[in-house]
């Protein structure tokens, strides 16, 4: 198939068949990798630059491995250490990199909308690796692929997204994706961490885990950032864990075969019980990481197909 989008900036612009196509291709890559294959030539001769304006080890590594497995020349730029700290604007940085003729730019930025802005100024495909609290499309895609593999479908599931929704781009991209695929969505968390207007998104909002997790097929935990823990948004780490941390007791209200997800990195003992996170019967956290590479390979493959015409 050809992909009608030049960039992957978010889930919001994607149509359901496009999401399915992306997941199908990612599934093929995942299966092949499980079979031991580690190399393709799809991106041979193409240059991929990872620009991370915000620290990330896991996502950057995942994009780097995905690019390398497809045969791309991958370069990582630590943007904090670059000319950005010398006052260069985002657009100038983009234009400078653009002049080096990359074929793919993978961008993470702390400001919502920054990756959209950058994409307007460059000639190559841009992949959003997370912008502020706005979108993180490959995370939602890898979550969707994991759910589809575990549940056998990606529709008519009850999905509870729990924790710090307000500051989470993962939650927003997942809401778009799972909403488009016609699932029943619940946002669960203290009112201080549920964004204003969330009730108008066509989701259920719950402020306690018991009602939020009832009969859920999928429980998606979000990371609570340390700077939000004390005082400002929740009273303390221990009270948060008591009320909203996922443990076996709270999970017992969900369906017996419910799966537990987490985008990582986890705070064991804050939003999730360590034993539960390691329970291979419930937790699919390691599979999420595995699918991350496959989904990113699929996205980069689709975004560069026009460069390999014929």
């Amino acid at each position, binding site marked *: 198939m050809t992909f009608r989008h030049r960039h992957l900036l978010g889930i919001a612009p994607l149509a359901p068949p496009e999401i399915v196509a992306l997941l199908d291709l990612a599934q093929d890559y995942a299966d092949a990798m499980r079979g031991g294959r580690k190399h393709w030539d799809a991106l041979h001769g193409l240059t991929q630059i990872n620009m991370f304006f915000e620290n990330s080890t896991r996502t950057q590594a995942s994009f780097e491995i995905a690019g390398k497995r497809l045969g791309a020349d991958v370069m990582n730029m630590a943007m904090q250490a670059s000319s950005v700290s010398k006052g260069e*604007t*985002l*657009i100038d940085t983009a234009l400078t990199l653009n002049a080096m003729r990359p074929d793919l730019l993978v961008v993470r*930025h702390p*400001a*919502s*909308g*920054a990756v*959209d*802005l950058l994409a307007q100024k460059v000639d190559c495909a841009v992949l959003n690796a997370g*912008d*502020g*609290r*706005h*979108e993180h499309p490959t995370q939602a895609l890898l979550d969707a692929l994991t759910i589809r593999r575990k549940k056998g479908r990606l529709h008519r599931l009850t999905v509870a997204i729990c924790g710090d929704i*307000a500051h989470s*781009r993962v939650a*927003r991209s997942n809401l778009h994706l799972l909403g488009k695929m016609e699932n029943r969505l619940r946002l669960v968390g203290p009112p201080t961490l549920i*964004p*204003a*207007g*969330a009730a*108008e*998104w066509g989701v259920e909002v719950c402020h306690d885990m018991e009602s939020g997790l009832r009969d859920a097929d999928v429980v998606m935990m979000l990371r609570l950032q340390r700077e939000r823990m004390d005082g400002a948004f929740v009273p303390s780490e221990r009270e948060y864990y008591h009320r909203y941390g996922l443990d076996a007791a709270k999970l017992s209200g969900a369906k017996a075969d419910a799966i537990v997800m987490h985008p990582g990195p986890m705070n064991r003992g804050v939003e999730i019980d360590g034993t539960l996170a390691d329970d291979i019967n419930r937790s699919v956290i390691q599979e999420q990481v595995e699918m991350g590479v496959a989904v990113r390979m699929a996205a980069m493959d689709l975004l560069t197909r026009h460069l390999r015409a014929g």
Partner: protein
Amino acid sequence: MATLFTDARLIDPVAGVERRGDLRVVDGAIASPGPAAQVVECRGRCLAPGIVDWGVKIGEPGERHKESYRTAGLAAAAGGVTTMVCRPDTAPALDGPEALAHATALSAAARVRVHHMAALTQARGGRQMTEMGFLAARGAVAFTDADAVVRDARVLLRCLSYARSLGALVVGHPQEPTLSAGACATAGKFASLRGLPAVPAIAERMGLERDLALVEQAGARWHADQVTTATALDALRRAKAGGLPVTAGVSIHHLTLNALDVADFRTFFKLTPPLRDEDDRLAAVDAVADGTIDVIGSFHTPQDEESKRLPFQDAAPGAVGLETMLPAAMRLVHAGHLDLPSLWRALSLNPARILGLPGGTLEPGAPADLVLFDPDAPFVLDRWALRSKAKNTPFDGARLQGRVLATWVGGERVFERERAHA
């Protein structure tokens, strides 16, 4: 010398009517009917008092690359604005009589009338009050820290009390700063989906209620620069009904745009305060119609391209508006919300009256500050055709109806649209 404007739709905000007829101008002032040596044929187009635009930011001193008095004056004349009432949020702030004298001298480069508001506190810092007496004597028409809120209630109470002794007008920016810190959008469904830091609408009401309580205590004359939310408008209505001598304004952008216009992080729609929900926009339009809001201003805020070509939360707020205010305001007339005399009450008569300036009327004796415009002429706005140095308008590419044909200040024509563009 006498000039006769013939066959005009005369917009009279004082009587609240419009009528077809002639208007005679003698020696720069409006006069009673009589003979005239010169004739301006209006051919049924609208002739109204020139707009008194309250809250214009000029880049002088400090940011002359964004706007100078000369370029702002050109934009004003082309927009039917005959008086610019300028904000003190320059760099450095207009907070002393010497700075005011300097600004007044520079303002001679503008082709329209210019008045200045001075800062309420030194450097708009909210601590030490300015020399209001000296500033008032040198012509400051009001005192305001613009969008910097005086956080310390005790300081504000003292400023208000001191201003009262001078009969001076204080202009406030209703906002609770602890809620609005870091915000660039109004809290709600849209801002949350876009992941933008947001301020709840009640922050405006909280700021307004605090200021109103202090005004009641101090007894000063007070004006809210912008009231843009339904919840704050209710508070304003209660205060006015209770007899408090307060007035309020709103920006043309908050009357014609809403939060959804930001769409995919369009920074030309980033304003202070941020654009509101459609319900709030309609409430503000109703408040202008029923007189709760007294003044419509452009809140002309020039920004260079660089300061807008940034991620939304990092971009500078504000929009230019001198040249686009009249056609944008005509949207309210064409939509049936307001008639022309009511609109001109808010654009021209009320700001002049509140600030104690002549003008805003077509009564004999008033200065002949006039705008001739075609209320129906359609056009597509091209921001690069604007006369301001800065081109940061949210109306780029917008279809608008209503064009200024000519503008006079004190009987002198300061703008005439070329026929090709008329």
